[in-house]
C-alpha cells in the first residue's frame, strides 16, 4: 500500500505557496493598473510601473504558475505512476528553495536588477537558482516515471515530459549572457538576433508554462473529477505531437514588421496558423468528454470551470494566430489589445484550470469534501465577469488606439498627436482596474474556500485520531 501522506504535504505546500505568490502578483497587477491612469501612484523608485510590471508578470508566471505546476505535476505523476515520488525529501527541499527564489526575484526586480527581456528579466544569479529548481523537478519527475507501476503512460505524462524538456532548453539558451557584475549581465545576442532568441523563448515560455502543463492538468483532473473517460486517445496523440512540433517555430509572430528578416516572420506566422489545429484538437477532446453526459453541468460544480477553461483556451488559440497575420498585427500590435489577449489566457484558461484542479486535489488530500460549493460558484462567476470585462475593455481600447495611430488626413499627415491617442485610453484604463478588483475579490473567495477545506480536513483527521 502506497503512503502518499508526506508527498501530499509537499503538494499542498506548493499549492499554498503558489496561492500566496498569486495574491502578491495580483495585488501588484492592481497597483500598476492604477499607475497607468494615475502617475502620482508611482510612489517611490522601487514602486514605479517600470519596475513593478516585471514583478507582476514574473510573480504570476513563476510564483503562481510554476508553483501550481510543481505541486499539481507531482500529484498527477504519483497517481499516474501508481507510486509516491522517488525522492520525497528532494521535493520538499525544492519547495523551500522555490519560495526563497521567488522572494529574492521579487526584491531584485523592485531594486531594478533586470535583463530587460520579457519573462526572462531575472538576473543571472537568480537564473542559476531557477535552473537548479528545474533540475530538481526534472529528476523527481523522470525518476518517478521510470520507476512507475503502471506500464502505459497517460497523455498527461507526455505533456509533463515535454514541459520539463522544453522549458530547460528555452530557459538556458535565452539566458546566455555576458556577466558584467554581481547583478548585471548583457544578453549574449545583439539586436535582431537578440530579439529573435528572446521571442523564440518568450512565446514558448507561454507555450510550455501556460499550455502544456495545464493541458496535463486538464486531461487528468477533468475526467477524474467528472468521472468520465477521455473522449479520444487518438486525438490526444495527434494534438500532442503537432503541438510540441509546431510551437517552437512561432516566436517571430511577436516581431511582425520589425527589422527581423521577413522569412523568419513569415515562417512564424504560418506555424502560428498551423497551431490552431492541435489547440482545437484539445478543445474538441475536452468538449466531447463532457459531451458524454452534459447533465454534469448541473450535478458537478467543477464542470463549468473545466468547460469555460477549455473554451477560453480555444478562443485564445484562434485570437493569437489572427493577431499574427500582418494585416491584423499592424492595427493591434503595441496597443492595449495585447494585454487583453494575454489576460484571457491567464485569467481564463490558466486560472480556471488551476483553481478547478486545486478544488479537486485539496479535498482528496484531506479525505473530505469541498468546504462550500456555493462559495466556489460565487468565485467562478466573479472571476468570469472580471476577466471578460478586462479583456473586452482592452480589445476595444486597443482597436481605438491602433486606428487613431494610423489615422491620416488626405494629404498624408497624421490626424492625432500621440498624447491625443493616449488621452482617449483613460476611461478604459479605469474600467480595467474595476475588472481587476472584481477578479481579485473572486480569487479571495477561492482562497477562503481552500483554506476552510484544509481546516475542515484537519479537524476530521484530528477527530479520527482521537477516536
Amino acid at each position, binding site marked *: 500500500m502506497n503512503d502518499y501522506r508526506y508527498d501530499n504535504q509537499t503538494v499542498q505546500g506548493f499549492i499554498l505557496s503558489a496561492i500566496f505568490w498569486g495574491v502578491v502578483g495580483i495585488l501588484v497587477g492592481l497597483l500598476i493598473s492604477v499607475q497607468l491612469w494615475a502617475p502620482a501612484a508611482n510612489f517611490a523608485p522601487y514602486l514605479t510601473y517600470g*519596475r513593478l510590471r*516585471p514583478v507582476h508578470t514574473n510573480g504570476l508566471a513563476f510564483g503562481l504558475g510554476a508553483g501550481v505546476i510543481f505541486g499539481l505535476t507531482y500529484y498527477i505523476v504519483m497517481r499516474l505512476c501508481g507510486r509516491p515520488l522517488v525522492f520525497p525529501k528532494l521535493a520538499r527541499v525544492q519547495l523551500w528553495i522555490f519560495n526563497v527564489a521567488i522572494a529574492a526575484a521579487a526584491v531584485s526586480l523592485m531594486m*531594478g536588477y533586470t535583463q530587460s527581456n520579457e519573462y526572462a528579466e531575472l538576473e543571472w544569479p537568480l537564473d542559476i537558482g531557477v535552473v537548479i529548481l528545474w533540475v530538481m523537478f526534472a529528476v523527481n519527475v523522470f525518476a518517478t516515471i521510470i520507476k512507475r507501476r503502471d506500464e502505459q503512460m497517460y497523455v498527461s505524462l507526455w505533456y509533463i515530459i515535454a514541459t520539463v524538456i*522544453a522549458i530547460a532548453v528555452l530557459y538556458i539558451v535565452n539566458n546566455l549572457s*555576458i556577466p558584467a557584475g554581481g547583478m548585471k549581465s548583457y544578453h*549574449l545576442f545583439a539586436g535582431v538576433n537578440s530579439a529573435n532568441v528572446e521571442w523564440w523563448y518568450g512565446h514558448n515560455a507561454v507555450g510550455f508554462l501556460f499550455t502544456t502543463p495545464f493541458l496535463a492538468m486538464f486531461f487528468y483532473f477533468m475526467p477524474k473529477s467528472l468521472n468520465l473517460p477521455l473522449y479520444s486517445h487518438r486525438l490526444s496523440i495527434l494534438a500532442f505531437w503537432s503541438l510540441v512540433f509546431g510551437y517552437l517555430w512561432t516566436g517571430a509572430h511577436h516581431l511582425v514588421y520589425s527589422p527581423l528578416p521577413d522569412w523568419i516572420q513569415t515562417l512564424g506566422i504560418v506555424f502560428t496558423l498551423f497551431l490552431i489545429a492541435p489547440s482545437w484538437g484539445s478543445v474538441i477532446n475536452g468538449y466531447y468528454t463532457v459531451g458524454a453526459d452534459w447533465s454534469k453541468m448541473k450535478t458537478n460544480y467543477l464542470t463549468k470551470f473545466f468547460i469555460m477553461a477549455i473554451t477560453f483556451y480555444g478562443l485564445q488559440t484562434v485570437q493569437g494566430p489572427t493577431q499574427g497575420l500582418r494585416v491584423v498585427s499592424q492595427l493591434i500590435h503595441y496597443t492595449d489589445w495585447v494585454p487583453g489577449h494575454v489576460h484571457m489566457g491567464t485569467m481564463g484558461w490558466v486560472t480556471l484550470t488551476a483553481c478547478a484542479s486545486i478544488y479537486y486535489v485539496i479535498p482528496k488530500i484531506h479525505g473530505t469534501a469541498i468546504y462550500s460549493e456555493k462559495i466556489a460558484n460565487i468565485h467562478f462567476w466573479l472571476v468570469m465577469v472580471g476577466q471578460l470585462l478586462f479583456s473586452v475593455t482592452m480589445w476595444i481600447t486597443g482597436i481605438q488606439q491602433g486606428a487613431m495611430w494610423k489615422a491620416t488626413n488626405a494629404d498624408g499627415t497624421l490626424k492625432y498627436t500621440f498624447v491625443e491617442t493616449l488621452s482617449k485610453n483613460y476611461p478604459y484604463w479605469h474600467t480595467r482596474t474595476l475588472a481587476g478588483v472584481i477578479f481579485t475579490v473572486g480569487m479571495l473567495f477561492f482562497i477562503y474556500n481552500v483554506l476552510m477545506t484544509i481546516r475542515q480536513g484537519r479537524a476530521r483527521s484530528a477527530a479520527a485520531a482521537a477516536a
Partner: protein
Amino acid sequence: MAGEIYKKPITLALMATVAILIGSVVTMAYPMLRADMHPKLETLKPFTALQLAGRDIYQREGCVGCHTQTVRPLPSEVARYGDYSKAGEFAYDHPFLWGSKRTGPDLAREGGLRPDGWHYQHYANPQALFPKSNMPSYGWLKGRPLDPAEVAAHLNALGMVHPELKADLAAVRAQLAGKDELDALVAYTQQLGHAVARRQGGVADLTLENPLAHDTQAVVLGKKLFLENCSACHGDEGQGTEGVAPSLIDDAFLGEKGDLPDGAYYALISGGSDAKPIAGRKGDPGGGMTAFGGQLKKDEIWSLITWLRNQKAHEAAEGHDVPPAEKGAKPEKPEKQEKK
C-alpha cells in the same frame, strides 16, 4: 502511431526533444549563422561611457515596458516617427530594447529630435509639458551619482564581443566627471536612432507665400496649435526658454518678412533643424527643432506662421524687442490686414 512509445518514457522524451529542436534550429539557431542576423550600419557609433550608463538606467527603470524602439514600415508610422528601423542600427544592443507595448510613444527616432533642455524638463515633470501624459516623474535621478568603476566594468563586459567598447577606468572617470544619472539618461536618449539620417520634412520651394497671412481664423488656430505643440520649448508667447529654445518673436530670430520668407519659415517648422541649410539659416543644423511636417497639416503650419508674425507685430507695437539697429524697418501690422 504505434502505442509502444507510450510505454517507454526515455524514447518518448527523446522524440519530444527532437520535435522541439526542429523548429528551434530552423527559426532560432540557423539564422545565427547568417550574415543578415548580424548587420551593422557604417554610421552606427558604439556607446560612450555616459550613453551606456544611461542605457543601463533605461533598463533598470523598465522604460521598455512602455516605450518601443522600432518604427514599423507603415506610412502612418513613418509619418509619426521618421524612417522605419533598420536591422543594422542595433548591433550594440545587448539585449534589443524594441519592447512590445507603446503606452508612450516609440523612441527609435527620439535622438536629436528635441534639445537636451526639453528632456531634462520632461523627465522631471512630464505633465508640465503634456498635461494628459501618464508617465511617472524621473526627476529623482537628478543628483544621483554614477559609479565609473561600474560603468567601466559594463563597457569591458560588452568589450568581450565588441572590442571597440573596451575602456580604461581613467577615461571613463573623466567622461563621467560631474555627470549624474539624469545626464546619462538624456545622453542615451539623444543618441537613439543616430545611425539613420533624420527626416527631411522641409519644402525646398522658398518662394511659397503664406495663403493664410490675412486670415483671422488662422491667428486663433495658430495660437491653439502653438500652445499644443510649441510652447513647451518656445514659451507660451513664443518668447523662448533659456537654454532650451530661442525666442521666435525677436528680430534676431524672426527678422522682417524679407529676412525670413514664408517659404523658409514653413520649411523650418516642417523640416525642423535639418531644414536650416535649405532655409538659408545660420543656426545649428544639428539643433533640436522637431520636424512637424508629419504631424501638422499644411494649413496648420501656415496658421502657426500667421500667429507668430502677428505676435511679433503685437510685441513690436508694445515697444518690446525692437533692437535699436532695426528701428527703421517697421513691422507689419497684421491686425489691420485681418480686417480686409
